[in-house]
């Protein structure tokens, strides 16, 4: 594993220690963020799953209805009947913030949903049925779009956050810890070296003084 090359000085040690504490705090925060994102994500996915089942079922019913309607109606009449919509399919979007992930909220105004915009003369009742089924599940479909989008966006963010948490936990923090240990040991070693040198010097000085004392009478 790559190590950080550092000068074994007290300055560096101090710097590294503060960086380590920042990394630890960041790690804790990101971990909390990840956990909360997971919780939100699971909630959204659960809802989306249920809604998808519901919509799929409703859609199957609509499909069979529509199939039989188009089998019974002339192709051109069918196209003509459906061409002019009664409602303008317009959608308003607002944005919500979940743990700093921007997710859309779709607001669909399904006010004038009932009633067809075609004459009943050339089409069958099956078509009316199928269309009213479709328009009644429209709200659910838009909600499903919102939920699925939300879950995909949250999923992305969870992946990113998890990668960051792991990078801090398994690479950055151990690196800092090792570098700090290396510097601390070097500094201690220097300290010890210094002390022995001092002791040695002291010994030498004492010896020299003793010798000087001994030498005095003899010299005179």
């Amino acid at each position, binding site marked *: 594993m790559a190590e950080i090359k550092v000068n074994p000085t007290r300055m560096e040690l101090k710097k590294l220690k503060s960086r380590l504490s920042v990394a630890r705090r960041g790690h804790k925060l990101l971990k909390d963020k990840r956990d909360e994102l*997971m919780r939100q*994500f*699971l909630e959204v*996915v*659960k809802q*989306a*799953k249920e809604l*998808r089942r519901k*919509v*799929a079922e409703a*859609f*199957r019913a*609509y*499909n069979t209805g*529509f*199939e039989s309607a*188009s089998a019974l109606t002339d192709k051109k009449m*069918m*196209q003509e*009947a*459906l*061409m002019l*919509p*009664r*409602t*303008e*399919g*317009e*959608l*308003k*979007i607002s*944005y919500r913030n979940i743990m700093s992930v*921007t*997710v*859309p909220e*779709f607001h*669909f105004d399904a006010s004038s949903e009932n009633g*067809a*915009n075609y004459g009943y003369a050339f089409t069958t009742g099956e078509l009316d049925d*199928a*269309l009213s089924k*479709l*328009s009644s599940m*429209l709200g659910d*479909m*838009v909600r*499903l*779009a*919102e939920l*699925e*989008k939300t*879950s*995909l*966006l*949250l*999923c*992305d963010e*969870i*992946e990113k956050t998890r990668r960051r948490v792991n990078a801090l936990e398994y690479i950055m923090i151990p690196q800092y810890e090792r570098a700090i240990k290396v510097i601390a040991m070097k500094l201690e070693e220097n300290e010890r070296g210094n002390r022995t040198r001092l002791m040695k010097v002291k010994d030498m000085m004492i010896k020299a003084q003793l010798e000087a004392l001994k030498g005095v009478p003899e010299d005179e």
Partner: protein
Amino acid sequence: MTYKIGAVGPRSSVLGFMALGFGVFEADNAETASECIDKMAHNGYAVIFITQSLCAQIKETIEKYSSSPVPSIVPIPDDSGTDYGEEILKDAVVRAIGADILYKD
């Protein structure tokens, strides 16, 4: 700002949406479908419904838009019988959590 809702798919599947005021784009193959999606994404469509057999064929195009808030591309069931929509959700769960805990049954 208001956005539009659109549907992409073979004629028989999406014709009904026309009556609801959706922008309907007919597409029978993957190429047309992905062109349609690109066009719609740049023209103010926020929700795009696409039949799931087509959706399964143009994964790359769909993934391009999966990390931006709009458009939301939703697969709808058709007569193919597969359930691609659930597959996407399942995939998201596996990617986010690391294990499939919702669909394990």
